[in-house]
């Protein structure tokens, strides 16, 4: 079970990094982001976009999230006594890794709901992913507060989780495990900050696009190299 928890966590963690890179392509250009979404919809393989491919991936991720959450629940405080014991312990000890776990627990708990909502949305409306589709959802759909919270939660949770995986299974121990651990932690913080900055910028970009596009909600992005074709608009 510990292995499954770790494996699902690792998969989700790596997925989130990838996910962040994909959505952040908006920072490069709307076209780039469009290309990425279409890539995942199989457009470049099949010539047509099948949002169902995305739905399948989303379903897979959702299952992973459920499995991961279910396994992780074993480690949560099971009752008030345990909750009090841990919070008291954390406050008194002032021990970094212990405190980090508490954050991991809290963010994990939050993510369980946030991610479920987000994933459900993606599962049902996979075709809505796109430069304008996403931006409209963020801005006009008033999803941005959720994305903002989720961004912090995910990056903290994932960063801490991946760091913990390394020390838990003894990866990258090297000759001097103490020094490696220090390096791992630095790397962990660096990655978290990097992804937070990237995420904030990305979210900002979507908000900006969404704000500018607020009156045209529903319109889909057309790559700049394509001559507008009315048929494209109707999915």
């Amino acid at each position: 079970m510990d292995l499954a928890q770790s494996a699902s966590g690792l998969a989700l963690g790596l997925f989130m990094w990838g996910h962040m890179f994909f959505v952040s392509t908006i920072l490069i250009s709307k076209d780039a982001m469009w290309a990425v979404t279409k890539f995942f919809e199989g457009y470049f393989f099949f010539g047509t976009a099948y949002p169902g491919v995305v739905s399948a991936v989303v379903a897979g991720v959702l299952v992973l999230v459920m499995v991961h959450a279910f396994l992780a629940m074993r480690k949560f405080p099971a009752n008030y006594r345990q909750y009090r014991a841990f919070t008291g312990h954390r406050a008194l000890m002032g021990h970094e890794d212990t405190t980090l776990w508490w954050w991991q627990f809290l963010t994990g708990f939050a993510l369980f709901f946030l991610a479920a909502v987000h994933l459900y949305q993606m599962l049902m409306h996979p075709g809505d992913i796109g430069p304008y589709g996403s931006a409209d959802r963020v801005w006009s759909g008033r999803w941005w507060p959720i994305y903002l919270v989720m961004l912090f939660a995910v990056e903290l949770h994932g960063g801490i989780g991946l760091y913990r995986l390394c020390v838990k299974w003894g990866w990258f121990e090297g000759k001097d495990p103490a020094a490696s651990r220090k390096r791992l932690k630095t790397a962990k913080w660096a990655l978290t900050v990097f992804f937070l900055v990237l995420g904030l910028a990305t979210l900002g970009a979507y908000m900006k696009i969404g704000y500018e596009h607020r009156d045209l909600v529903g319109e889909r992005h057309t790559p700049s190299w394509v001559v507008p074709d009315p048929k494209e608009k109707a999915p």
Partner: protein
Amino acid sequence: MADGQALRKLTIRILRYNPRVPGDVPRLQDYEIEEADGMTLFIALNDIRDRLDGSIAFDFVCRAGICGSCAMMIDGRPGLACRTLTKNLGAVITLAPLPVFELVADLSVDTGKWMRGMSERLEAWVHVKQGEIDLKRIEDRMDPDLAEEIFELDRCIECGCCVAGCGTARMRDDFVGAVGLNKIARFRLDPRDTRTDEDFYELVGDDDGVFGCMSLLACHDVCPKQLPLQTQIAFLRRKMVKQGTLG
């Protein structure tokens, strides 16, 4: 003091509670003492008991950092009081008994009972080969490096700091703690112990054992003997997963 600083007045704040006194409630009690050069908490506490209050319960044995009796929460963190120098702490020092273990009174807790229970559960002894050892014969040879590796893990003094520092142990009474996992790692390494990974999996291959550990690593960070708990638990976890999945 040697460096010419004026000696400080210290406030030693002790969590007092004697469960055998009817109606007694846990409370913090302050004691003012004068700091001395090279003063440890061993010296400070005995000074308090000799001069100010003979009723405070605490445990010291070797007072040299090798027996593990005097572990307590020092400003919130578990540590050995005997080798904690007051000069490394603030002017107000808060002392509390180790959590998890049964309280005797004040700063004294029953680590012995917990450790014995853990040892019995994990069968924490070398399972010697059947048959008499021939004491007259030359001992079995052992690689010098292996002997050193075993000793490295054998250095545990069962002080309880790792257990008190452990978030899992705080929440779950049956968790064996880093002390227990380290012991299994030690016996696993020892060719004189006849047990196999299958046997060890039976003992620690569950959520009370190595899979209960959340890798918070406080055990590693507070261990007064600097045992390599982080790497040993990781190693044991890999071996136990291998045993659990591949058999």
